[in-house]
């Protein structure tokens, strides 16, 4: 069992999410005494009992004043069996991007629902975002059971509705009261009909076998290290798979292969390394490799291409528009990119993405690290979109309405650049691309 479980939480406004997390931190003794004292003082006049557990997590002044959570907060706690990193993400419609952010690194999502309110459109949306971001393990936390007198029928109805929404995902539904602590730490006398483990016990023991080492070897190069004339190493983090000294690896997009000569670390050379280690690799032959290139196992090559289909979550107030040029960061490479459709803030949709320089990628469902990218607005530098590669452009050319002509593309590139030098560089690169 892995020693570290990454969790994200989602729920609608007033489902009591911050209260549940505050309760978990408090009951797992991850909240310190002086924080309890300051929260107890601040809880007066807020009408949420002697300790308002949401105050442990609502970190920003504006949030405490408005009584809502407006930004992702990361929390850390441990039990005897596991360490946890928990991303507390807000339930408001306008902050969908935070939900996607929290889910992007999570192994498991806790979906919170108010038993007295039932499943809301927001709950469905959160479940969908979590699934879109690759989460396959869920806890449905049916909260405020005290408001429905711990009624078993209410629990079962909501549970079944979620099982339906989540399709084939693995799902554990728990009836609880975050305010009173029922089924958070241990079993509650109020739900004798509930046999499953309580929330923390489940989180301690659930096996979310995302075995990164079982996937093909992928190593995006971060830096080429040349401390002297003798040494030429490629520094990076193994995102999936295993590599051994002597393995034949291929550098993409060039497609040239060589054998691994050394796996270098500050703690000494290794015979073998695996995800998610950060190492430096040297090869037995000099091949031209730079930042943004990828080493991968010779037997299961990644895709290389300039055009692909992706699911995109749009996170910027300025909508995505065809014809605008964005910067696209994928693994360790940043390129210019265009999308073929409009997307408004918080909208999620499938788009064709065209890039100026070939990317080395996998489908997101096969590899979260090499299948994901962000789109950056070059004018504001804001991270405007998050993308998950769904398919190859070539095999999906069913929409003839969006070919980006060479001249139009170059013009967009030039317009989108922030300086003349950048424009020249972008156009040159694109021209080279088109002519070779």
């Amino acid at each position, binding site marked *: 069992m892995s*020693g*570290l479980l990454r969790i994200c939480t989602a729920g609608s406004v007033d489902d009591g999410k911050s209260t549940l997390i505050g309760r978990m931190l408090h009951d*797992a*003794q*991850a909240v*310190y*005494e*002086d924080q309890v004292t300051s929260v107890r003082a601040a809880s007066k006049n807020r009408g949420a009992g002697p300790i308002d557990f949401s105050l*442990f*997590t*609502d*970190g*920003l*002044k*504006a949030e*405490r004043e408005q009584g809502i959570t*407006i*930004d*992702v*907060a*990361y*929390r*850390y706690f*441990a*039990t*005897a069996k596991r*360490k946890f990193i928990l991303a507390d993400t807000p339930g408001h419609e306008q902050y969908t991007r935070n939900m*996607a*952010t929290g889910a*992007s690194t999570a192994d498991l999502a806790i979906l919170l629902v108010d038993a007295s309110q039932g499943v809301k459109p927001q709950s469905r949306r959160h479940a969908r975002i979590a699934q879109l971001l690759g989460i396959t393990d869920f806890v449905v936390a049916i909260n405020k059971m005290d408001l429905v007198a711990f009624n078993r029928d209410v629990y079962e109805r909501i549970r079944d509705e979620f099982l339906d929404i989540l399709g084939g995902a693995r799902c554990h539904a728990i009836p609880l009261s975050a305010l009173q602590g029922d089924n958070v*730490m241990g079993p509650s006398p109020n739900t004798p009909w509930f046999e499953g483990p309580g929330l*923390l016990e489940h989180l301690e023991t659930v096996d979310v076998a995302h075995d990164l*080492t079982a996937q093909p070897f992928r190593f995006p190069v*971060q*830096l080429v*290290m*040349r*401390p002297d004339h003798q040494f030429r190493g490629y*520094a*990076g*983090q193994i995102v999936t798979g*295993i590599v051994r000294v002597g393995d034949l690896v291929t550098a993409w997009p060039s497609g040239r292969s060589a054998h691994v000569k050394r796996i*270098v*670390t*500050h703690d000494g050379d290794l015979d*073998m390394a695996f995800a*998610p*280690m*950060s190492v430096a690799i040297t090869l037995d032959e000099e091949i031209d490799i730079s930042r943004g290139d990828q080493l991968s196992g010779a037997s299961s090559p990644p895709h290389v291409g300039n055009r692909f289909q992706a699911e995109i979550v749009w*996170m910027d107030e300025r909508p995505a528009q065809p014809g605008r040029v964005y910067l696209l*960061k994928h693994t*360790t490479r940043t390129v210019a990119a265009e999308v073929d459709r409009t997307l408004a803030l918080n909208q999620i949709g499938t788009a064709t993405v065209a890039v100026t320089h070939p990317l080395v990628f996998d489908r997101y469902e096969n590899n*979260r*690290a090499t299948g*994901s990218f*962000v789109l*950056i607005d070059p004018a*504001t*530098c804001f*991270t405007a979109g998050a993308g998950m590669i769904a398919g190859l452009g070539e095999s999906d050319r069913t929409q003839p309405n969006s070919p980006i002509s060479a001249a139009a593309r170059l013009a967009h590139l030039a317009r989108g650049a922030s300086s003349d030098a950048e424009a020249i560089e972008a156009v040159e690169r694109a021209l080279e691309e088109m002519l070779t």
Partner: protein
Amino acid sequence: MATVLDTTHVPVTAAPALRLDHLRTLEAESIHILREVVAEFERPVMLYSVGKDSSVMLRLAQKAFFPGPIPFPLLHVDTTYKFREMIAFRDDMARSVGARLIVHTNQDAIADGTQPFAVGTQRCCGLLKTKALLDALQAGNFDAALGGARRDEERSRAKERVFSIRDASGQWDPKRQRPELWHLLNARLRPGESIRVFPLSNWTEIDIWQYIHVEQIPIVPLYLAKEREVIVRGSSLIVPEQSFVPVLPGDKVETLRCRMRSLGCSPCTGAIRSDADTVPKIIEELIAVRQSERQLRIIDHDQDASMEMKKREGYF
């Protein structure tokens, strides 16, 4: 009932088990962040505060760029009120890792007699820490500053990004933070903007101590318990290194077995009573003691939402 992890003796992946333990997972993630900074920025600098987190960050930097040297300088913002042992330790460390050390002090403020009992802690921090830091970053023309802050330290820090953008005057706007998905770090800056980078974002205090233990990282001896002469003021223990620290009615000067849980300026950082004179004993003590580490830092409590206000102004 769950208890905090019993981790005095942490299993470390030495033999090739195909699953990294949590400490090595955090290490790999931090190395990735440090390398992204060097790849994406022209003139990074590492804020070296001499504390335990800085010591861990320095070791991670050695690992990230091995077999090369650390490719950026270290910057220490010296208020001149740091513990004397910290300064000696700082100079030794910089020498032993072979890094360039820049020390910056707001000399004008010191010449004007700035100290916490004369101008108050808020103004003192503003001049000697925040302003000094911003001036030093500008003087060095640094475009990225690496800091050892952790999200588990304080609740506004829990919302901090790994790549945290500051405007032209070095200030933080918590409502305009960029989403950070996967491990994709957006390094693009608009003219005048700069960035603070926190490679230890996901580490907790106990992770830091476990890592110091397994890596045998040198730390300032002030972290370890021994007999020290302190001023006992209510529940605070103050080490009287600076002559301007007044002895108030009711204060008692005593020699106690104590240690520092976090290191800052001697007049504003309290000691705790402790027998923990080794790193494993500190870890045991942390598991048992339930006081958050910044409680002893007077500056966090001097106004409502204190840390958030300082961060907005440009403090780390």
